[in-house]
């Protein structure tokens, strides 16, 4: 059971991350990868961050772990601002936030054995005596259901699913409180994905972990996340509990996403919004359309949409949406 659901472990406020990609006559050109994001994650929950490629979801992840320094905005972790690069963070803070990358083939060093890979966090962060390493390693591998003989194998000699399990074990090694999962299963087959997801859910209960789960797979999120946030071009469109999310999607982009998911049963088909069909493509984050960034693809576009960027509105408790369609409703009330 998840107990303390109310204290926020991570709070992101007006986070912006721009990348300088060159210059023209008007001045420097920026890729606005993350453009004013507010998000909070409660202790012990799983927040799903969903978006198409280029929407800035990985940039958020990398900023939270400290691979990038935010352009502006705050990242509060357990009440402390951590909006600085990892090199300037305290060691005890780095231990608390861990990340699992998308492709385990490139996140594990192919020239090291699994033992070398898994001992590194202990050597950096703890003063565990060397003779206890072995015991710790075996315990770690047991956690992810791998046998101890994997210690002497190297990443290229094991399968993709097993590699990802090793990467997860490495992230779990020091009992962190927040784990960022950056598309951990999108490179894997469904039967392997199911195994890894179930393991992650078990470990979360066992170790009281908080997950920030980044993915482009909506149907996976339905089964994993407590809450889902949808991102589009560096901004959050809609945040809601995962059940409400699929029963009553209100943002036009969310509706488009859900209607695009290929499904395998009749019940699922009934959940898909019928009238919405997907059109257009995500524009480049260098030239973000003025006003609401989604308006060129939107089916309910109004004149106001191309001029003013909508504000975040609380549609119902816990259900936040950023769209002019609902701003009007609010004003009428």
């Amino acid at each position: 059971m998840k107990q303390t659901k109310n204290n926020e472990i991570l709070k992101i406020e007006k986070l912006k991350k721009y990348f300088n990609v060159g210059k023209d006559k008007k001045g420097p050109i920026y890729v606005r990868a993350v453009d004013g994001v507010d998000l909070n994650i409660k202790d012990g929950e799983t927040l799903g961050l969903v978006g198409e490629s280029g929407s800035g979801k990985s940039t958020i992840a990398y900023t939270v772990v400290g691979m990038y320094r935010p352009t502006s905005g705050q990242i509060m972790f357990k009440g402390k601002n951590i909006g600085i690069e990892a090199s300037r963070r305290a060691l005890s803070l780095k231990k608390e936030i861990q990340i699992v990358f998308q492709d385990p083939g490139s996140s594990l060093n192919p020239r090291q054995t699994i033992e070398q890979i898994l001992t590194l966090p202990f050597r950096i962060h703890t003063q565990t005596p060397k003779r206890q390493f072995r015991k710790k390693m075996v315990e770690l591998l047991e956690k992810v259901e791998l046998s101890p003989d994997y210690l002497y194998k190297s990443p290229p000699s094991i399968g993709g699913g097993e590699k990802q399990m090793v990467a997860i074990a490495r992230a779990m090694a020091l009992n962190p409180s927040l784990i960022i999962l950056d598309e951990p299963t999108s490179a894997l087959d469904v039967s392997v994905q199911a195994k890894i997801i179930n393991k992650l859910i078990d470990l979360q209960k066992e170790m009281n972990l908080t997950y920030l789960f980044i993915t482009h797979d909506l149907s996976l999120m339905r089964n994993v996340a407590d809450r889902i946030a949808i991102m589009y071009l560096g901004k959050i469109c809609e945040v809601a509990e995962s059940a409400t999310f699929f029963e009553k999607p209100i943002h036009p982009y969310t509706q488009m996403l859900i209607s695009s998911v290929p499904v395998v049963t009749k019940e699922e088909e009934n959940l898909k919004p019928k009238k919405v069909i997907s059109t257009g493509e995500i524009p480049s984050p260098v030239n973000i359309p003025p006003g609401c960034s989604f308006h060129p693809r939107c089916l309910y576009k109004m004149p106001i949409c191309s001029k003013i960027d909508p504000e975040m509105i609380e549609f119902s408790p816990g259900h936040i949406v950023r769209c002019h369609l609902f701003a009007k409703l609010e004003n009428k009330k």
Partner: protein
Amino acid sequence: MKTKEDILLNIKDLHVWYRVYSGYLKVLNGIRLMVREGERVGLVGEAGCGKTTTMKSILQILPPGDFHIPQGQIFYKGQDVLKMSFKELLRLRSREIAVIFQDPTAALNPVFTIGNQIGDVIKYSATFKDNVHKEKIKTQSIKALKEVYLPDPERMYINYPFQLSGGMRQRVCIAIAISSPRNLLIADEPGTSLDVTIQDQIHRLLNELVEKRNTAIILITHSLGVAREMTDRIYVMYAGTIVETATPEILFKNPVHPYTKGLLASVPKISGGGIARGIPGKLPSYLNPPSGCRFKLRCEQEKPICSEKPPQLLEIEKDHLVACYLTQR
């Protein structure tokens, strides 16, 4: 009008091996697959189960010198592809079968314009005797680009692939495939490298074009959901064998083979309800595949007979064939 009863492609007991340093990888192990004219067939399986090898053997574009076909036949319109001369194969590839590859970035040549690449396909698909003029090729290419709803096809014609987005590149690949009349279209995971909304658009476009032209299509995919929405009949592949084939309605209502069941249960659903535990174990090594049924090591209902010889694909009801001893006496 073509009838759906005419058999276009018939693969019989196909075995394909790849030569490696330590022996042969016995990848395909008795594939049986049939495509009727105008039929949409889905080939579903996980990574490494031989879907792409099947596609490549139909066109005979397997890596030269590295493969070995110990037995099997591939009949296209009654003629065995494996016994065709080089000239006949060229004809097959240029006029009869078109392919859409998984990665549009790799499929298009970065140093030629889009127009150039479509034009080539049209040039070689037309009868060689006919003197097709440049203008004619151009109008036909632009017509093809229009048909896949690319904005501003005239400009697209002189663009290079890197100037387009991933979704647009895949549309160009589809335009190339449909630019000349073909009887069979093989789409190898056409939407996999794209986002869901773009994938949905590409699939709808393919469906529309196939219906309009009455072309048969083999859709290779790893997603059961895509196969369900796109095809008339689904073949489920596991480790180089066809384990089950049925129409989507039957397959999703009543899956019989333990592998199909496990695969279906592993698919996350948007109606919620959690995910099953997945299928234990992993694909067997192709170097020394297990004797008999190739799924037996991961199967929970393994019987002694499973190790004796591979199960045959037998009909258990109309349009529903299963290769498993659990359903056979």
